[in-house]
């Protein structure tokens, strides 16, 4: 890694999406669950942002906040979601609906559940086309067929007439991806779209999505807890912990030299990084309950570097040029990575 690339800012001019201090809380009977509590990141045009973190860290809720589908008892209580300069959080439901599936699309985590079991694929695709453009049924069908072909579904004409249960999981996810691509959106939020699939299919889909994003100029938010996926796919990475972004930067820099102890822990627990025969290293402890986060740094109880000052909540700040982290005692020496 050269000094020049480290100093390059990950934020290019006019990003497609800029999330500033987003707060999405769930007002449950047991109390307020601060699922997303101060998330900030940017997604530059045509780039891929990897959003990573353990289960329950608020990745999906962040995604739903962006497309405006947080359902009660949840609500966006603060922050801004700037899409091409417009704050999505302040749009009316009707205005938001015209962006959804059109300029901003989302792909869900579980391909077995995202398609309506009683509607044919053509119905589910054509309705999406016609929800946003005034075209004839036949034109919409053509567009649906072409897009199915684009995501690698053989004989799309016949497949259009099938029902979801006639497809395998991988094929269903391709259909969902095709639906997301129908209007060539500016931004796609992909919520762990390949986690439920087996490794080879995962690889194929990743490669195809990458190609499509590059050719159509679409920006991607790729949500995952798999760092190896992010390493191969993303340009930037935002690491989430307990509803907050704890580290944000260019992917090769962050993976190469994490600043936040949590990021370092995540990297340490990737199987391929462990030496053969060594037990898989895991971050000790569990994510604290979002209902009763302790004062100070949320990672404190699990952090090997925790100290006195960590009783005070650390702000997110630029620690190295273009490198943000939310930590009082970031890892600054390369040698420390191994021990973290």
């Amino acid at each position, binding site marked *: 890694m050269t000094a020049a690339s480290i100093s390059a800012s990950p934020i290019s001019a006019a990003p497609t999406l800029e999330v500033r201090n987003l707060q999405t809380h769930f007002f449950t009977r047991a109390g307020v669950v601060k699922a997303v509590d101060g998330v900030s990141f940017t997604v530059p045009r045509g780039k891929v942002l990897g959003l990573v973190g353990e289960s329950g860290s608020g990745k999906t809720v962040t995604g739903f906040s962006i497309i405006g589908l947080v359902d009660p008892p949840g609500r966006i209580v603060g922050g801004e979601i700037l899409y091409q300069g417009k704050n999505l959080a302040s749009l009316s439901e009707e205005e938001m609906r015209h962006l*959804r*599936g*059109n300029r901003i699309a989302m792909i*869900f985590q579980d391909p077995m559940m*995202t398609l*309506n*079991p*009683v*509607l044919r694929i053509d119905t589910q695709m054509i*309705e999406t086309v016609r929800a946003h453009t005034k075209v004839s049924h036949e034109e919409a069908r053509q567009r649906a067929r072409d897009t199915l072909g684009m995501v690698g579904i053989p004989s799309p004409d016949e497949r259009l007439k099938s029902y979801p249960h006639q497809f395998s999981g991988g094929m269903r996810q391709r259909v969902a991806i095709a639906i997301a691509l129908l209007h060539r959106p500016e931004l796609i939020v992909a919520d762990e779209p390949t986690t439920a699939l087996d490794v080879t299919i995962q690889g194929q889909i990743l490669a195809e999505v990458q190609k499509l994003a590059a050719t159509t100029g679409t920006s991607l938010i790729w949500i995952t807890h798999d760092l190896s996926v992010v390493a191969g796919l993303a340009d930037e990475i935002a690491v989430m912990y307990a509803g907050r972004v704890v580290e944000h930067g260019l992917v090769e820099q962050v993976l190469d030299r994490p600043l936040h102890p949590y990021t370092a822990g995540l990297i340490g627990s990737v199987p391929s990084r462990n030496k053969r025969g060594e037990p898989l290293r895991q971050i000790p402890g569990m994510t604290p309950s979002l209902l009763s986060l302790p004062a100070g740094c949320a990672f404190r109880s699990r952090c090997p570097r925790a100290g006195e000052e960590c009783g005070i909540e650390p702000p997110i700040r630029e620690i190295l040029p273009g490198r943000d982290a939310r930590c009082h005692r970031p890892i600054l020496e390369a040698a420390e990575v191994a021990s973290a």
Partner: protein
Amino acid sequence: MSVYLLRRLIQALGVVLVMSLIVFIGVFAIGDPVEILISPDADQIERERAIVALGLDKPLWLQYLSFLGNALRGDLGRSFVFNEPALQLILNRMPATLELAFGAMFLALLVGLPLGLYAGLKPNSPVSKGIMAGSILGFSLPTFWVGLMLIMVFAVQLGWLPSTGRGETREILGMRWSFLTRDGLAHMAMPALNLALFKISLVIRLTRAGVRETMLMDYVKFARAKGLSPARVTFVHVFKNILIPVVTVVGLELGSTIAFSVVTESVFAWPGMGKLIIDSINVLDRPVIVAYLMIIVLMFITINLVVDLTYSVLDPRVRLEGK
């Protein structure tokens, strides 16, 4: 598909045979029609002549076999009371019961689906809570009491609707129907509503539960994520899914509605099968009872088959060749 149908038909035949045996033996066991039909002062010779004429002197299994043989020829015996073919007697009354039952089902869907949909989409609104409270009443109030109340209010006090009989009828396919005339419809309104009350509550509850469950599904959220209008999400994505359980239950309920319309038919003096069977049981008119039960069995089997076929149309995941 045709293999499936064939298998279902063979199964149905088995069920009919078993039911015929049960019905025949069951009815044989309840009382002696000779006691009722023959005047107490008839002498022994007269008695015996009657017994032979009715075929009651033969052993039970022979009676059953001849019953079966006749049944295959469409002859389910002659009514002891009316001295008419039992089947004919029942078939004459069937349209009255059928139109009442279908009318009730139609009402149940017409009222129950929209109310259930509303209650499911807005579970916390006061209107929804009112709908749900009303549905509890519909479940728990006894049919005959509601029937009498309807008559009291709409026939006696307000004088809007007639309280008894079928009114004017029109003939189609050789059967008389009330729903084809204004007067007939007016006569049908109250009994149909009375019979529908329980079903309305059932449909409301099923629909509401279905909507609430379906709204949480990923595919509904995905439909919203595609930017579809709320109407399209509700009436296509949600509605098509809840139709599956609703159609199944309502379809299966149709059989019991027909079978148990007895109370409503009695309250409103509706000349249907229910009223006939009550009268026949009172005088132990055995062939009529047997014929009635057999027709009900056939009806249940047919309804189940139709429900299954409809189900497979609504839910593409159900493959009829399977299993």
